[in-house]
C-alpha cells in the first residue's frame, strides 16, 4: 500500500475523539482514514473543519438575543427574517432558514427534532447529548411541561406551551423574555444572561446577579 501511495502517511489524522467503542464509530474512523488515503480531503482540512465547528458556541445566539432585547427595530427584523438579521451582526446564518420564536407572557416556546437532531448549530454550537436523546425527543412533544420541570422550568398553566418539532427545512431559535431588573445593563452584560438552554426553550434567561 505504501508503495502505491508514498505520501499517504506524511500527515496522518490524529484522533479528535475518544477511542471508538461501537462498530459504527469504528466504521466512521475507518471511512475517514480511507477518504484521507484516497486524497478526497487531507488530514489538515479535516482538522480545520473540526476547529471551525468547535469555534461556534451559544455566544453567537446570545449576541442576537441581547441585541433584540435592546433594539426594538432589530427585534422586529429578527422575527421577520432571522437569516438577514443574524447576517447583520456579522454572524454566519448558515444555509437554512432561521425562524426566531418569541417568548411572551402568553406563550413559551420549546424546540425539538423528533426525527433526528436538527439544531441551529451556527447559533448554538453542537447540540447537547440530552437534545439528541430518545427520551427528550419522544417526551417533550407528549409531556412538555413535565420535561421543562425536570430542567427546573415551571410554566404557569395560563401560559401556552408551544412545542416546535423541527422536522424539515427550518431551524429554530427561541428568543427568551428579557429578565426583570435588567434595565441598567449593557448589551454585553445582557449576553451573559442568555444561556444555551434558554434559546432551546428548556430554560428561561438567567436573572441578573444581585451585585450587578
Amino acid at each position, binding site marked *: 500500500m505504501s508503495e502505491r501511495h508514498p505520501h499517504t502517511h506524511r500527515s496522518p489524522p490524529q484522533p479528535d475523539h475518544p477511542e471508538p467503542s461501537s462498530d459504527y464509530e469504528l466504521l466512521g474512523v475507518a471511512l475517514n482514514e480511507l477518504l484521507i488515503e484516497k486524497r478526497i480531503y487531507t488530514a489538515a482540512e479535516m482538522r480545520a473543519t473540526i476547529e471551525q465547528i468547535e469555534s461556534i458556541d451559544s455566544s453567537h445566539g446570545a449576541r442576537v438575543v441581547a441585541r433584540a432585547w435592546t433594539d426594538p427595530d432589530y427585534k422586529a427584523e429578527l422575527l421577520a427574517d432571522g*437569516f438577514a438579521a443574524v447576517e447583520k451582526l456579522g454572524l454566519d446564518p448558515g*444555509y*437554512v*432558514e432561521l425562524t426566531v420564536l418569541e417568548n411572551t407572557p402568553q406563550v413559551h416556546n420549546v424546540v425539538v427534532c*423528533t*426525527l433526528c437532531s436538527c439544531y441551529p448549530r451556527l447559533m448554538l454550537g453542537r447540540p447537547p447529548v440530552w437534545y439528541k436523546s430518545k427520551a427528550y425527543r419522544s417526551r417533550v*412533544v*407528549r*409531556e*412538555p*411541561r*413535565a420535561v421543562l420541570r425536570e430542567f427546573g422550568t415551571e410554566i404557569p*398553566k*395560563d*401560559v*401556552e*406551551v*408551544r*412545542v*416546535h*418539532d*423541527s*422536522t*424539515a*427545512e*427550518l431551524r429554530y431559535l427561541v428568543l427568551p423574555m428579557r429578565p426583570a431588573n435588567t434595565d441598567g445593563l449593557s448589551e454585553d452584560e445582557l449576553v451573559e444572561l442568555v444561556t444555551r438552554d434558554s434559546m432551546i426553550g428548556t430554560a428561561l434567561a438567567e436573572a441578573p446577579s444581585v451585585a450587578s
Partner: protein
Amino acid sequence: MPEPRVPESSVMPRFATGARVRISARSEGRHHRVPSYAKGRIGVIERVCGAYDQPELIAYRCSGEPLQTLYRVQLNQEDLWSDYEGACNDTLEIEIFEHWLEPA
C-alpha cells in the same frame, strides 16, 4: 450542499395561512419527514414556508423536483394525546410538506 435559503419558485401553495388541514395517515416505506404521532391529525396552517426539494427523493440522490411547498402546521396538544396533562391551550407546531396534507 443544500440550496441557500428558500429557493425562488413558481410553485403555488395549495393552502393558505389559517386553512384547516389533515396530515395524511398513509404509511411510507422510504425516508420521509412526517413522524407517526402527527399522521392523521387535523391542524391549522400557521405559515407557508416556501418550496423545497422533496425529502423522499433527495434522500436517494434523486432530483427533489417537483418542489413541494412546506408549511408549519399548528396542532392542539389535546387532539394529539388523549391523556395530555398540560394546559388546554398548549400547542405543537410541525413542518409538513404539501403532498402530506389534505383539506379538512
